[in-house]
């Protein structure tokens, strides 16, 4: 249970970091 929850939080962290990176790069590419 503990491992599962830690993995979920880790996935959330990676997703958020990835989302910000992708969003920023996409905005730069689309509005240049």
């Amino acid at each position, binding site marked *: 249970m503990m491992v599962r929850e830690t993995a979920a939080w880790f*996935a959330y962290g990676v997703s958020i970091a990835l989302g910000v990176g992708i969003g920023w790069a996409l905005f730069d590419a689309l509005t240049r």
Partner: protein
Amino acid sequence: VIGTTGAVACLTLLFLGMRSVMAVGGSCASGGPYTISQPCPKGVGWVVPVSIWAGLFFLAVSVAGAARVRAPAIAWLAWPALFCSLGWNFLEFGLDPAGPETGPVWGWLVCGVLFWVMGAGPVVLGLAQLRNRGSERDPSPLVVRAATLGSRVRATTTPPPFRAATTPSAAAHRDADDLVDGLERLADLHRTGAIDDDEYRRAKAQLLGGR
């Protein structure tokens, strides 16, 4: 992962799109048969609306995915994230507007404060509620004392109950309930005349640990 990444990416697009519009004065237009005084920055005209709808879609994917693998639900954080990030833009550009304008733009500052209240308000209330729930779980010193008294009373009258599966705080609550039950029963006996004043006083003192 896909849902959360997509939702965050869309929120980032929205945040940056809003910043780019505010950087050209806060309003812009593109297309149509009119003379446009302030054209929109390239791409923003469609990036902003698309990011709103795509963000909602990805948020739904994120919620469904989290429910499927029974991960902690964090999709509600999208609300404070949205309002606080856009509110930040209002506050930043309200204090230091782009272009020839100088000084604070009060309309934007009001929007910024409102957005922060809407975004952060529920979080603050939620945290306060969580804290309350936490204190309910940890009994106050009064409850612990009442529970101790109750267990002492019971030790003289009944054999110790089986407690292996209960936590200390659950046992404390149960003991406090037992004490209150005992006092109520005693008061009933006194009221109906089954015991006189003196007997009631002595029994009550004994129940509260004065033996």
